[in-house]
């Protein structure tokens, strides 16, 4: 189950938090991409649409795009308009570049081609970041600073996770320069000022390009779930930058529920998701002592995953909102942790799933979910 290239480009682009994303698509693609973003951020409305209609399909969508650009420039107080051309304009052959180049606007305009049928969501994310790299400016290096690459504004717990990761790195004497893609245009422009790029699951092509063109090294890291996962994450960055920090975590909160943790040891679980899934599975397995019976990525065969879970002893499922059906069928709880989550909100910035604090919150969520599930009556 993959959202396709258009969704990836939308997620990367809408992560420039003061930019406006102009989707050159029919209504449905615009609605679909945006709906997942609005669950936990209902007033962050920075997307627009050219509303490709039968007329555009027949006569071309260039006029609609031109008109939309003018209107967007007038209506939004934004430094940047990002045009994403989806499936329909790709097939009918709209010359998006010509329209963008001919427009004289106050805002800077950048466009990208992202027909859904031309690649996966990750392809769309990677290519969009490469395109956005054109916005970066040469900047003086800030010693001991990193860029975090791989985020999207509609990731579950993204704000809380970023806050926690920044806190941990700051403790280690590392400053986060830019979070990609969850930053302002100005922050994005000055990404080259970092001493190191840290890639979390996606954005490798951008990191590779920045290494090639700017000599900026990068580290590929697992998403920092759990105590050990987080310690490893901080240590690796700290070591790379030579800040020599040993992160410390507080085991006390776990002591308060040690009996529950004992009881849950050996719990058979299954995990599915994007790049977050592997790190989550490592935490569940390595730190909570759960038995991860089935682990899959979104791009794997979903029906095969479902079948494997059904044939396993799984008692807790970890995934996105789309796994609720399997959980319900098997009468087991679902812990939502990765995109798309549309039936849970995350609005408290101090309740992350990543980092040391995240390990506590996640453990709390798991225990509460299990305890309130209804026991034998369920």
């Amino acid at each position, binding site marked *: 189950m993959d959202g396709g290239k258009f969704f990836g480009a939308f997620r990367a682009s809408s992560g420039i938090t003061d930019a406006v994303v102009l989707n050159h698509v029919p209504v449905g693609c615009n609605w679909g991409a945006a709906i997942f973003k609005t669950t936990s951020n209902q007033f962050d409305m920075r997307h627009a649409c050219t*509303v490709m209609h039968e*007329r555009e399909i027949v006569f071309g969508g260039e006029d609609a795009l031109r008109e*939309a650009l003018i209107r967007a420039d007038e209506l939004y107080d934004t430094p940047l308009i990002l045009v994403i051309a989806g499936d329909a304009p790709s097939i009918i052959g709209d010359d998006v570049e010509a329209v963008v180049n001919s427009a004289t606007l106050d805002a800077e305009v950048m466009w990208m081609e992202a027909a859904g049928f031309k690649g996966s969501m990750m392809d769309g994310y990677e290519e969009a970041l490469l395109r956005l790299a054109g916005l970066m400016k040469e900047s003086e290096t800030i010693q001991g600073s990193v860029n975090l690459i791989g985020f999207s504004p509609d990731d579950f717990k993204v704000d809380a996770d970023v806050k926690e990761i920044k806190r941990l790195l700051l403790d280690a004497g590392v400053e986060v320069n830019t979070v990609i893609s969850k930053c302002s245009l100005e922050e994005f422009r000055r990404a080259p000022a970092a001493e190191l790029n840290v890639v979390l699951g996606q954005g490798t092509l951008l990191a590779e390009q920045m290494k090639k063109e700017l000599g900026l090294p990068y580290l590929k890291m697992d998403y920092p779930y759990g105590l050990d996962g987080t310690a490893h994450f901080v240590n690796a960055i700290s070591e790379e930058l030579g800040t020599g920090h040993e992160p410390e975590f507080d085991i006390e909160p776990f002591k308060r529920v040690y009996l529950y943790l004992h009881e849950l040891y050996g719990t058979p679980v299954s995990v599915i998701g994007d790049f977050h899934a592997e790190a989550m599975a490592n935490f569940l397995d390595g730190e909570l002592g759960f038995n991860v019976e089935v682990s899959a990525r979104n791009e794997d065969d979903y029906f095969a995953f479902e079948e494997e879970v059904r044939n396993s002893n799984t008692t807790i499922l970890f995934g996105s909102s789309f796994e609720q059906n399997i959980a319900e069928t098997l009468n087991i709880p679902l812990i939502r942790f990765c995109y798309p989550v549309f039936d849970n909100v995350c609005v408290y910035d101090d309740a992350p799933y990543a980092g040391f604090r995240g390990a506590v919150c996640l453990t709390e969520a798991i225990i509460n979910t299990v305890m309130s599930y209804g026991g034998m009556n369920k």
Partner: protein
Amino acid sequence: MNGDINMQISKQLHNMANEKENVLHEIFRDRVFNGIHQGTTWQFHRYGINCKLSGSVYAVSEIENAVPLIHGPAGCAVHQRLKPRKMYAPIYNLPCTNLNENDVIYGGEDKLREKIGEVYHRFHPSLIAVLPTCISGLVGDDVSGVITELDLPCDLLHVPSEGFAHRSRESLDMMMRDYAESWKDPSRSPAYDLRGCGHEEVMFSIVDQLMEEQEIAPNLVNIESFGRFTYGFRSELREIKHIFGEMGVSVNLTLPTCTVEEIKRAPAAELNIVTRNLRWAERMKERFGNDHLRKWFFYFGFDGVEKFYHDAASKLDLDGEADAAIRKEKMQSLQELEKYQKIFAGDDFAVSTQGFFFTPYLAKIYATDLKLPIKYLCVDMQLLRALNISEETIEVMITNMQEAFEEWGLGFEVVTNPTLDEMSEIAKKVDHVLSDRITPPIYGKGGGVGVMDISATRYLLFRTGFSGIVEFGKYLAEKLHGERGKTYQNNREPIISRFNYDKIHYPMLDDNRCSASREMWSGMWSMKSEGCDNNGRR
């Protein structure tokens, strides 16, 4: 009223509450568990609309043991799992042909053929509904051709659901004006359809491709539903069946909320009750000769509901025969309502509502059926502006509404778009201010005007039956004079009343990004024609 009387009424109300099945509880459950998704998604329509494909997925999901199959790229089958009317229940099994670049060049028919077979063997459904997307539509795949040549032990359906074919924004303006023109004379109600948003296409396709010739059975009706997840659907359907039953009329099925076999037998009904667009029913008339009756706005309220059943009886040649049954049902409910009307009689009311095509008939229910002594009817027309309804149309609506109220002798003062100060003044002159939409953020700021919220229960007033109004009366009487919850409802300053809202597009926040995105969407959508006249009519 003093405390003793309140206590007495409260006891009386408590006893009454146990007399019937808890219809109210059903409404509140639906409002909470469906509404949290549906109501929120409705607000997002300020910034975009969903794809026609998702409307079709929703309608197909209503058919028992039917599987929608998306013929398009993988991305279309991800977000289309969520349908605005049923966000809490995604279509988890939404297979897709996963068209890629090669298929766009060489066509996706082979993939479709293969996928249909795979879907059958995986799910063993009664029906596979193939839903083409913008991509397969553009490529020009012959979906009908593919499904015709396949021989599988299940039914196959082709629903034209390409996302780039949708209605225009302006179409609503003319429809709203035509409704306003017909408030005093319902015979002038607009007899045209707005272009479909997926549901209509499924309805038309099942008539065209699935239904089979049947011998028409007298006094048998089909009812088109908005889907089983509509607020209060179960209890409303129960009542409709009961009243029809008393009239000697049977309900054949609810469309499309039924099985495939039932769909095939749908032409056995003498009459179709149309809830949405007429196109499918006209097609049934053309193919099988079934007559139809549309559920219009003027079928609300005691007289309206009575007229609906009379009109249905007339279509079924039951004039006269059914009269007694309809009158009996109406009188029973009126009798039951009387005890609540007496409770309301001692107080003065102001009612805050919003302007829409049903507003005059809703006001008539408050004033005539419930007999609320209304001094002021406060009508907020801003929603219409938010829906791109023109100032001219809004003027026509206000004028015609007032003329209708005068003609019906309702006797209250109409105040359009009252400010907070005006509402404060009105509140001082009445005992109660009721609001059938959530208004604390507008009128409750800083502990301003105390408004009684009836937003959830107003759904009871839009039913094709008499009991909803009675249930509403019971609820209101309990709210006004019952004891339940009174301890906690006095000093509210809800968090939602502490935000700043856009003055026209409430409840949109007063936020530059929201305003710009709303205006951007509205402007771009307005530019689109839909292959119909300038007014959106087909």
